[in-house]
């Protein structure tokens, strides 16, 4: 990438925001003026001024699909790390299997990865997750990639364009959790390409024209792959 790449406006904590609009996310008001509370990208959408943080932990929201790792097993629940400030318990009533008291380890054990949904969050930050819904399950095999949760929308792209492109070019199955954990499964070359592409998206999330550059990168990778096979 030699040519100049457009970069979105970056703001730092406490920086005054001169754009007009209603205060949205990542912004606070003092004496009628707007200030950023994060190191992030300035964005105006539907009359609201938002600051999207460039890094930070995942804050669970009800209804989010997340990928988590089982870190503890108890008689009636599992403890799942979803990379939030708090661990999330998964109760036996929230799984699609009938689990007898004390037999939790038969179904999920420490280190297993699950695709779950946040069923509830309260003001104390306590989180409950569930597996009882279509498509939610234990993820077997595959690779995990961790990115900053604030960059998840860039990996998915507008209307899922970016993720669909990654799937089409590499033939991999990809799940993106809202908490910034990505699960990839498929042919080894495909996984390598996906990891490279995601790292690229992560590093350049604050630039313009990212989808086109990722597309060019994927074209190039595929070209190389074909050449080696012949």
């Amino acid at each position, binding site marked *: 990438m030699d040519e100049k790449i457009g970069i979105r406006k*970056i703001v*730092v*904590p*406490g920086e005054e925001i001169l754009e007009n609009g209603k205060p949205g996310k990542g912004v606070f008001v003092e004496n009628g003026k707007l200030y950023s509370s994060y190191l992030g990208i300035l964005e105006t959408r539907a009359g609201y001024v938002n600051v999207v943080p460039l890094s930070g*932990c995942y804050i669970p929201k009800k209804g989010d699909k997340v990928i988590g790792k089982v870190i503890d097993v108890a008689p009636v629940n599992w403890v799942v790390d979803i990379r939030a*400030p708090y661990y999330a318990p998964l109760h036996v009533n929230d799984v699609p299997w009938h689990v007898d008291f004390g037999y939790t380890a038969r179904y999920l054990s420490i280190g297993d990865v699950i695709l779950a949904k946040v069923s509830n969050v309260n003001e*104390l930050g306590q989180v409950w997750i569930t597996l009882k819904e279509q498509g939610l399950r234990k993820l077997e095999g595959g690779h995990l990639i961790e990115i900053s949760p604030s960059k998840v929308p860039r990996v998915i792209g507008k209307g899922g364009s970016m993720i669909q492109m990654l799937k089409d070019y590499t033939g991999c199955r990809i799940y993106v959790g809202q908490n910034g954990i990505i699960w990839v499964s498929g042919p080894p070359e495909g996984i390598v390409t996906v990891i490279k592409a995601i790292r690229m998206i992560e590093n350049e999330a604050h630039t313009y024209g990212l989808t086109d550059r990722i597309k060019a990168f994927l074209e190039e990778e595929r070209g190389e792959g074909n050449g080696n096979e012949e």
Partner: protein
Amino acid sequence: MGMKSDIKLIDDNGLRIDGRLPNQLRPIKMKVGVLQRADGSAYIEWGGNRIMAAVYGPREAYPKHVQEPDKAIVRARYSMAAFSVDERKRPGPDRRSIELGKVISEALESVIFVEKYPRTSIDVYIEVLQADAGTRVAGITVAALALADAGIPMRDLIVGCAAGKVDGVVVLDLNKEEDNYGEADVPMAILPRTKEIALLQMDGDMTYEELKAAMDMTFEATQSIHKMQIEALKRKYMEVE
């Protein structure tokens, strides 16, 4: 402070022993995102000071009894490396570093939106690799960068700077000799946007007028340090390969 010596700290031209003017800062260099494993990190070179800061969290606070049900706790640990000073420093926390950890924690807590993360702790580790006076204020300055890098919401980027009195003259940003043989040292931490004071200590003695002069000098200096902080944070994202 208060050590007797016949060193002349201010020469006949009014310059200090390292050639600076009374209101001149030492050269400062900052870098953000220097560590892989931490959630946020930063490094600063401030004169002879070399300080690394790392931030972890917000994460669930342990042991459980330290959790606050309505806000996050900020735990800063200030520690000096054994090789950071001329005579080997006995490693581990001592009276001085525990005190500094406490005052730095309180200064940082005043800018962080702690109420956003109940029951968690935000851990800040400040490691002084090389000390040359003014490490607490440099530590606060670099901790602010590491916190911003970790994506922690803050009201402002806190800045620290010290002033003091040497040979009867009020000077900015004391170096080691001035700190050891001078008359007073006033470290301060300031919120540059609102000009609020988050930390103010004084070692030695000064008159009221001298203290005011020292504080005014610090206020002015923090504005330029704040600009360097912003520049350091933005630089991390401007360099896209």
